[in-house]
């Protein structure tokens, strides 16, 4: 958290009352987002998301064959590990980032355990109750300039969209239990159902009735009194929501916040899906992709 003086907070609040933000955006505008996929050769799927050149998140996915959990024998497992690199802030040194990491991880887990992604998880199953894919999704926060939830969920979704899994051949054994699998390292497939994956939208309120903003910078975040983070599925459903901050929000504001969050989420999903489609098409056709990476 950045430390802001009262005067600075007042400035941001007063601006918000007039619908103006310090970087010239309107209340529900989001900053320019840079999205890049398949950035890590060591991961099966990866994505890097930067918001306004200040928030920077790198996500890598590594699949592994494992046994499914007993409660959901026909589903694969998606496990999240979020790490806040000390690059982002000296506060994250040692175990300093553990709390934030846990919070971010929990949000992702909440988003990806909702029924919205059930089909995605089912598509990871190999042999019911015996073998499934476990996707280790490792996220690294390199730079934090506000809206971590949004950036993180976007990066995870993009990485899931481009992740490729080796084809698995099930060799039937003599008995039912003896089925063996063989991983074919030559042929790969993508995860079709990853289009179901949700993203998170955070709206923050500065304590004034009916006034809230999307995609906050870290300054705006530190003077927000309450915020709502909501997972939005491509069908516009809410799939996990949490609140933060101690200010409290009145009912009417909350209600309209949820509506706007859902709408904003759909817009972001639409825009990223269009980008990802061309991105994937380009990669499939072998068209040259200009890396924007760290040299943009």
């Amino acid at each position: 958290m950045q430390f802001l003086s009262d005067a600075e907070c007042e400035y941001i609040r007063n601006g918000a009352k007039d619908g103006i933000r310090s970087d010239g955006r309107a209340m529900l505008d989001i900053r320019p987002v840079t999205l890049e996929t398949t950035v890590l050769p060591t991961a099966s799927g990866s994505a890097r998301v930067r918001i306004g050149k200040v928030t920077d998140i790198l996500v890598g996915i590594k699949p592994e064959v494992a046994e499914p959990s007993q409660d959901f024998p026909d589903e694969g497992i998606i496990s999240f590990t979020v790490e806040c690199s000390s690059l982002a802030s000296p506060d994250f040194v040692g175990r300093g980032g553990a709390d934030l990491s846990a919070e971010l991880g929990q949000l992702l887990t909440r988003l990806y355990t909702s029924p919205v992604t059930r089909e995605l998880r089912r598509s990871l199953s190999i042999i019911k109750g015996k073998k499934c894919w476990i996707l280790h999704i490792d996220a690294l926060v390199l730079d934090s300039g506000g809206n971590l939830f949004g950036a993180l969920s976007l990066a995870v979704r993009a990485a899931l969209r481009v992740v490729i899994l080796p084809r698995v051949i099930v060799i039937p054994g003599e008995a039912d239990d003896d089925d063996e699998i063989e991983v074919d390292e030559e042929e790969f497939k993508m995860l079709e159902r990853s289009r179901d994956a949700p993203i998170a939208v955070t709206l923050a309120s500065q304590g004034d009735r009916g006034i809230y903003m999307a995609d906050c910078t870290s300054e705006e975040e530190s003077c927000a009194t309450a915020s709502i983070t909501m997972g939005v599925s491509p069908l516009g459903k809410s799939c996990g929501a949490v609140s933060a901050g101690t200010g409290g929000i009145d009912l009417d504001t909350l209600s309209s916040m949820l509506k706007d969050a859902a709408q904003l989420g759909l817009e972001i999903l639409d825009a990223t899906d269009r980008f990802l489609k061309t991105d994937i098409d380009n990669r499939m056709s072998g068209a040259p992709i200009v890396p924007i990476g760290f040299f943009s």
Partner: protein
Amino acid sequence: MGAITYGPLVRIDGEGAKTKERDVREDGRRWDELRPIYMRVGMLSTATGSGYFEGGGTKIFCAVHGPRPSASNYTIDGTMHCDVRWAQFSGREGAAGRQGDSMSEEERELSSSLQRTLASAVRLENYPKCRIDVSAFVLEDGGGGFAAVTTAASLALADAGVEMTDIMAGSTVAVIGKQLVVDPSAREEAIADGTVRVGFASQRAKVTDLMQNGEVDLEQFREAIKVCCTASAQVCGLMKECLVKKAKKWLKKRGRSEM
């Protein structure tokens, strides 16, 4: 010692013109009915303040210690530390297999969630260099455990005489199909498509904590929040009654029947 029992049923409102047959739940409640509630304050002698909440199969103890001097670094405002734990026998998944003192991820998350909710009402600026410890222990979880923790903690804080701007209660609504189910039991929670949990400050009419799990339609979500708020407001009423009852008893003991 103040205790209040309400039962068997607390109605939320009477406006629903639903047919009786469809409305009946497993335990005989209507969709919009709370379970019977039993509340009590000040039953733990060692704590500064304590609260007990029982509703349906959910039983929760909450103790408040402090405000006491903060041992660690200096802070301008007071700090609040919350600790929510499920008993190993509480019937909640994950709690049973726990080893040692370490908190599970979920408990940690709920602790910080509780801290947020309570901090919105407690006037921490009046307790510089102090810390207040709130520890809640869920004996049995028959659904809606965390919402009840908010209620019990709020009671305990009030009992401890900590300055607060409001009294908070929590409540849960589950979405099963198209139906909103108030104060779901553990079984109902398990089969629900999604649940919505709200922490509600009754005086200011503000939502201090919001948590949604699973999948919920936007409209349902907004409706659910409203229902939660109404239910919480009712629980708040009961809490007040319970606290007043205790205060009266206390005054009587000292020979002052009226304030």
